[in-house]
């Protein structure tokens, strides 16, 4: 295949208004997910720079590349980083991390920073799993739930689907709304069978957008039932890649009957942010 529709844009960012040299503590958070890797650099607990890229088959390399890229253009060097926390699926394979903390704790903490202390429920829609987290005003995890054994309703599932329909993944959301009326959701839960079902719908003459709509609403509903099981309390935040897919988010909001809080930055980096913040706390507590 020449074009890879599932591939989303990798990028990096540096804060225009922070001078790291004036910062007391510089910390780093590395979130090596099954699909994407983010490296977040924070100056005194403020977002300074980050990189967001796809995870390769080797976590250590992904982490390394992520860090290099995050530092790129800033004259900051890694030796200045007081403490690094690794998180995500490859958290134990981050060579330069001082400690590993689970993505559940990090996403709750990160959401607390990015969406504010009023956040009580966090949904992390990652590459391969979907986590519903209840947390307190400090971003401390009270309870959590993860989807099991089946990948329907995950980022990876969405990629598979974008590939099948040959629609760039960033476009899936908006296109899914370009339909006369909302179709019934695809019934299959299995990612692969959802594909089969979709091919069937296409054969039956459904336009792509309508199929996308059916898939997005199926995904939204699956996530909804997961959230129902843990109980949604406001404010409600979404982190992870899918947070950027309005096709799913808008439909989920409709089912929940509440709107999702708006983040200060790309929700995909929440895990990394949480990790960097934990790093800061650990430094301050002299645990580093």
């Amino acid at each position, binding site marked *: 295949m020449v074009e890879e529709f599932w591939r989303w844009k990798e990028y990096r960012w540096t804060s225009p208004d922070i001078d790291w040299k004036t910062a007391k503590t510089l910390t780093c958070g590395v979130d090596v997910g099954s699909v994407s890797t983010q490296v977040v650099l924070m100056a005194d607990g403020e977002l300074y720079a980050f990189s967001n890229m796809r995870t390769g088959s080797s976590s250590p390399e992904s982490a390394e590349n992520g860090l290099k890229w995050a530092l790129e253009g800033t004259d900051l060097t890694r030796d200045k980083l007081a403490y690094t926390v690794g998180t995500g699926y490859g958290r134990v394979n981050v060579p330069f991390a001082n400690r590993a903390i689970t993505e559940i704790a990090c996403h709750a903490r990160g959401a607390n920073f990015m969406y504010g202390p009023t956040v009580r429920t966090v949904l992390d829609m990652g590459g391969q799993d979907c986590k519903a987290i209840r947390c307190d005003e400090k971003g401390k995890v009270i309870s959590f739930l993860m989807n099991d054994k089946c990948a329907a309703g995950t980022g990876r599932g969405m990629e598979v689907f974008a590939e099948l329909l040959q629609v760039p993944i960033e476009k899936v959301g908006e296109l899914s709304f370009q339909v006369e009326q909302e179709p019934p959701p695809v*019934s*299959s*839960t299995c990612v692969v069978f959802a594909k089969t079902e979709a091919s*069937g719908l296409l054969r039956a003459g459904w336009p792509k957008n309508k199929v996308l709509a059916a898939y997005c609403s199926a995904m939204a509903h699956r996530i909804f*039932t997961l959230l*129902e*099981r843990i109980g949604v309390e406001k404010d409600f935040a979404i982190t992870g890649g899918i947070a950027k897919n309005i096709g799913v988010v808008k439909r989920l909001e409709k089912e929940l009957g509440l709107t999702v809080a708006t983040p200060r930055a790309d929700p995909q980096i929440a895990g990394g942010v949480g990790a960097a913040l934990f790093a800061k706390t650990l430094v301050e507590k002299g645990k580093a």
Partner: protein
Amino acid sequence: MADKKGKYPTEPLKCWDKAKKIREDYYKDYASAHEKGGLRWAGGAWTFDAIPAGLGDDVHPITSEPYGASCAFNKEFSLKCLEATEKAGYARDLCAYMRNYWGSILLNQFAFGGPFPKPDFLWQDHICCSHAKWYQVVSELEGGIPHFSIDVSVGPEHEINANKIDYIVGQMHDGIEFLEKTTGRKYQDNLLIKAVKNTCRSTSTWAKICELNKTVPAPLDEKSMYSLYVLGTLQKSSQEVADFYEEVYAEVRDRVARGISATPNERCRVMSDTQPPWGFLSVFRYLEKFGTVSIGSLYTFGLIGAWEVAPDGEWVHRKTPMEQGVSINDRDKALRVLTEWELHKPEWQHFYSPHLKSDMMIRIAKQWKLNGVMLHYNRGCEGLSLGIAENRLALLKAGYPVMVFEGNMGDEREFDMTRTMSRIDSFMETLQMKKEFE
């Protein structure tokens, strides 16, 4: 392709409307029992409903399995119930009937309109490993309702002995004490005796009706049998059901006499197994396109029917104790008769060994002259799916082609219509059946 008209005359069932009415009244009576100073109780379709009957004629039950099936017919409502149950933390693979029923309680919505009418007590029996626990949960969801369940898992019919019967009858006596204590009513043995006789009569008569389906062409197809047998699952101990079954028997016998067929183009006879996916009974209509009729199943025959093996090996209806000249004149005797009668229930035998079920199925396949068997691997009921894979092997060994399809009697999310249809297409091909009309 031939058209829908076939070589056999067909006719709608006369008893249809009455069946419908009995069912509607049943749920009305339950819901409105309190208005008339009566009582409401809930339990399973297999419970000894003859026993609470001794509390008075104004005591009305609701049996959860048929209720759950009624929910399943309404896909939208059913989905709401199922999701409410999941939200409450109950697993998706639990009994689909109960998940619909629990959901109704959680949503406080009665499938037949209005809020869910809370029962005064729970009266159940226990043979599969969850039966009594279903009502443990019901009691909890309803904020604590008195609950009594009777353990009947004492082994297959050929092992019945005094010790086993005493165990069950003993529990029944305790149960009657429980009923008097919880309701504050005086228990009336004469009503019990009447109800026990009705139980034997309705279940024996239902078997007689099923026997008539040995006829070629079959006077009844399974789809219509469902709407008739269900009454037995509602209240097999009621006079009304017992009498009604005798009417049905007369009508079906008349159909046989006049050569009336359920399907105009019967060329191939199959049976199913376990509860069907209730939301998708159209599967049975689909079979007709191939000139194929499902004449029933061990489920439709044996859940409510009482059977015995005649000296010539034929499977025939069980003679009632009254026909056998047994006199029932006190509580203990009534309870013993009821126990023995129910312990012969065909659908209770396979709980101890799937091989007993295989034997019964093969017997049906032979005596009802079948060409093949469709097994519903039912994710909604572990009790009736118990050992079903062994049944499949045994039927194949006996020379009957078998089709397997996975589904769920009460959770439409686990039934895939398209895949099942294509499965049927392949199966019909193997039976050399061609579609006769679209």
